[in-house]
């Protein structure tokens, strides 16, 4: 399972990573990162990450 990150609290920039909930790891949106590749595959299989805390 994965969890989205909120926008930056000051700049409102969009997050550059996603959290893997089972170990709290922060996975950057980097196409060469194998954990990000696994996340994309997980999404492509029809899964949806948890919303960011504080998100509407």
């Amino acid at each position, binding site marked *: 399972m994965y969890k989205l990150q909120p926008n930056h609290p*000051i700049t409102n920039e969009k997050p550059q990573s996603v959290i893997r909930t089972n170990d709290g790891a922060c996975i*950057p949106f980097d196409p060469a990162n194998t954990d990000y590749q696994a996340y994309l595959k997980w999404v492509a299989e029809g899964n949806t990450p948890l919303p960011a805390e504080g998100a509407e």
Partner: protein
Amino acid sequence: MASIISATTTSGLVNTADNSGDLQFQTQNGANTITLPNSSGTLATTANLSGLGFKNRVINGAMVIAQRGTSAVTTDASFPVDRFQLQVVNANLSAVQSSTAPAGFNFSTAITVTSTTSSGSNDRSSLFQFIEGFNTADLGFGTANAKTVSVSFWARSTVAGTYSGNLSNAGGTRTYIFTYTLAANTWTYVTATIAGDTGGTWVGATNAIGLAVRPIMLNCGSSFQGTAGSWIAGDARGTSGSTYLATTNSGAVVNITGVQLEVGSTATSFDYRPYGTELQLCQRYYQTYPGIGNGNRAIWSGYGAVANYAYWIFKTSMRTSPTIAGATLGTVDPSSPEAVGVYSTGSNYAAFGYNGSSYGQATATAEL
């Protein structure tokens, strides 16, 4: 003495014979000598000499570096030592760094079959290493100029048998199986010379997977079986007749060390690199941070008037932006500009939001 071939400054080339069986080359009237003794040996070929700079493309082949610790691992895609992954598909395995080693080595990776499983067609458990494309591109695989390579390693098993290992490309569309025989409880030096693959699609000089080296298959289902000794256009990792401990021998232990992949048609002695060099090579894929607080190092940066960031500058550039994990790292806290969590990462750094409390150890992972 020795039979002598001497380049003199007076008489030109002079040959002097004797019956010792040794052969000596001389220059400058005998001032400079090289002697080939009356014993067996192998002279390195030009191809091997050209590989001296980074002869062994396998990192941590002697299983010395274990940054993740020395506890046994059991799950798929876990690392008993740096750079070597345990692949677990329908198997019950435990892998750990071991001090059991052949002469000249101090460590191995020991894999224990904790219990057997029934064979499945998709079984493909192994100990393996992905080698980065930047470190394999010169092999020319997938081109007419593909170079011959030699794989070598030491193996020991509690069970005698014929075992399978292999090389493959990233996509598993090209594989070369080799087999070898082990006597029970005996360290054996295994070598396999493999003509470079002129076919298929291989990753070039990129940070993606260049090739996979699998010294041993612990199980291998029918969907992944093939014939040894030639390149296969598919994902075949072991032969049908090999010993697969994970399906047959509960309690069996196999040790692997000294894994080397080099250019050339002869497997040569293991390429010992300095410990610090080997560690740095490993840290391109995984490294740890001791944590913030109690005097541990960090570089600080204010963000606007309120937010602070602690920058973890990596010890060496990583393969790509790493995954950051640590006991106290969580999501960026939207309620506090001095947030706890990872703000951004690159191949050289990670920026943590910092709220003044201590952080525990963090890890950065950029494995293939």
